[in-house]
């Protein structure tokens, strides 16, 4: 008979930091069998931001004048809101560069220019693929670039 691998603290070794809260809860319930129901106080946490994006603003996607924040949330959010894979990778990179981990969220960056945002979206960089003009139209990208490009044009 093979011996199982012991697993002290394995739930604490979260692959990605955002799961730690949930992992800690499930760990607490896992140590005893049958597990007691966890005590919940306050409102239930909903899905994390990257799984509850803003709706795409209504109207002609080729026309301008839409809200950059909503466009960013809907079109970029699956990767670049909290918990998304882009945020996870960027957080790792920013920490290596001795920048604060919260700068892994693009919305927290003060150093992005609008032009840089447009170039990365259209040309891609590292794990980030270039996005098509069906995924993000030029008009939408203009608004997103203004929203994220806090360092100016």
């Amino acid at each position, binding site marked *: 008979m093979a*011996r*199982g691998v012991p*697993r002290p603290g394995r739930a604490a070794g979260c692959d990605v930091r955002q799961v730690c809260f949930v992992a800690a809860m499930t760990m607490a319930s896992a140590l005893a069998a049958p597990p007691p129901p966890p005590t919940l106080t306050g409102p239930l946490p909903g899905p994390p931001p990257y*799984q509850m*994006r803003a709706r795409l603003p209504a109207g002609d996607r080729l026309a301008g004048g839409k809200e950059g924040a909503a466009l960013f949330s809907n079109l970029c959010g699956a990767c670049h809101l909290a918990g998304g894979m882009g945020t996870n990778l960027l957080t790792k990179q920013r920490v290596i560069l001795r920048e604060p981990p919260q700068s892994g969220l693009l919305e927290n960056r003060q150093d992005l220019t609008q032009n840089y945002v447009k170039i990365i979206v259209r040309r*891609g960089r590292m794990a980030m693929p*270039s996005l098509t003009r069906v995924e993000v139209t030029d008009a939408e990208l203009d608004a997103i670039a203004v929203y994220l490009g806090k360092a100016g044009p």
Partner: protein
Amino acid sequence: MELTLPPRLSAARFRQALQAFEGVVGKGWVLATDEDRDAYSDIYAPGSEKEWPASAALAPGSVEEVQAIVRLANEYKTPLWPTSRGKNLGYGANAPRMPGTIVLDLGRMNRILELDTTLGYCVLEPGVGFFDLYEHLQREKAPLWMSVPGNAWGSVVGNALDHGIGYTPYGLHARNLCGLEVVLPDGGLVRTGMGAMQGNHSWHLFPLSYGPDWTQMFTQSNLGVVTKAGVWLQPAPESSLLLTWDIPNEEDIGWVVDTITPLKLAGVIDQNVFVPSWLGKIVLKGQRRDFWDKPGAIPDSRVQELLKEHELGYWQVQVRLYGDEAINRAKADVLKRAFGKHVAAPPLEETWKTGYPASQYDATLGIPSAVALQMGDWIGGRGGHMGFSPVVPASSQHVLGQLRRSRRIIAEHDVDFYASFTISGRFATNINMLMYDRDNAQQLASIRKLFNALITQTAQAGYAEYRTHLGWMDPVNATFDFNDHAQRRLNERVKDALDPNGILAPGKQGVWPAAYRDLAARRDAT
């Protein structure tokens, strides 16, 4: 990327065709700049993305526009490559098989047309992503779950049409399709199943048809453009119990499969059980150079050290039970007895109930995430991956044979071994993940040689892939060789009958229309 024209089409004729398409979708949805062509290339290409160049892309907004485009494509002889959201990552993304093909991007057609919470289904357009549907179910507070693939960035319908798999009881995604609406290669419109009757109420419920059912004919297919699909959804269970075992040794996968398969066939286990090897956990913990800084494959001695350091088994088995809590408990007892014959440590047990928070990365709960793509960062640089994905019978004899064979071939090419088996009942899908730096020419050459060797030797042993990258669609098709490739010849006859101009997805899955059959790379692997 500079323009590559479709075969046998002049630049002038191509320009005329684009003008005609502008008349259908409007100027803004005909995308034909060099930058557009770059965006419709394989971002994980094992080599230059210029091997599979698109000439342009068209983005229709309705089924009528799709029909009009298909009719014009017949007139101008411009081949079209339909994609839903273009996230077929590892298999070619949104790039076409035949150079110069125009991508028909259905991403704008992204309406959720119907959601039935009583009978558990929805009707979707192809541009609806897993995140879109998940958010819709949350907003509607619908008691329904999706099944999601490891990378859930893409389209629900597109993934099902390409035979994608997930890890819930609804994990065979093509089997969730019920009732399609399809634009045929001549621009005609057909509805499959009971939808063949105008206004039939059972279109998305009855999985067959009166007479032959054509639904599956349009999966992994170039016989039509799917514009609507019924997709079955799992009723949300009131509770769920996850059992996790770390399995110490590589060869243990034999008894693992022999333990899980009978329980799956008997209905104790409902889900597709995903069994990844250790590297699947390590790739999320850092970059390869953090664990092994030499170019060749990580040696076994280092693998053993890493397993100890990170408290991992060679494999991790997670079985998730769904439904009534008492039934889950009883099933868990059956599972623990079965696993207890082989492994001393009890499983980690994690309970989930309706209203409790769930791990946001747990595909076995039908929660979409693209976090699996973080493995793109493992190698460093412009990381890419391909999966070699043969299907084997779900028994130790076949699974161990497949493991040893692919392990040997991958070791001969000095590449890291990262395997998983997904046990789906009578069969298991073995995905061998091959990761590379797109800017390392030597590594790419090695990976391509390796892929050829895997296809050839696996076929000689009697197994084939269920899905493959653009560059190997012909070689894999060629492995289906019964009666002098009778299935390919049948596919070609059907293709030529329905699509005499060969305008829909020439070469998809190695099926070429007469018009372009001379372009098939049938015998030689890429």
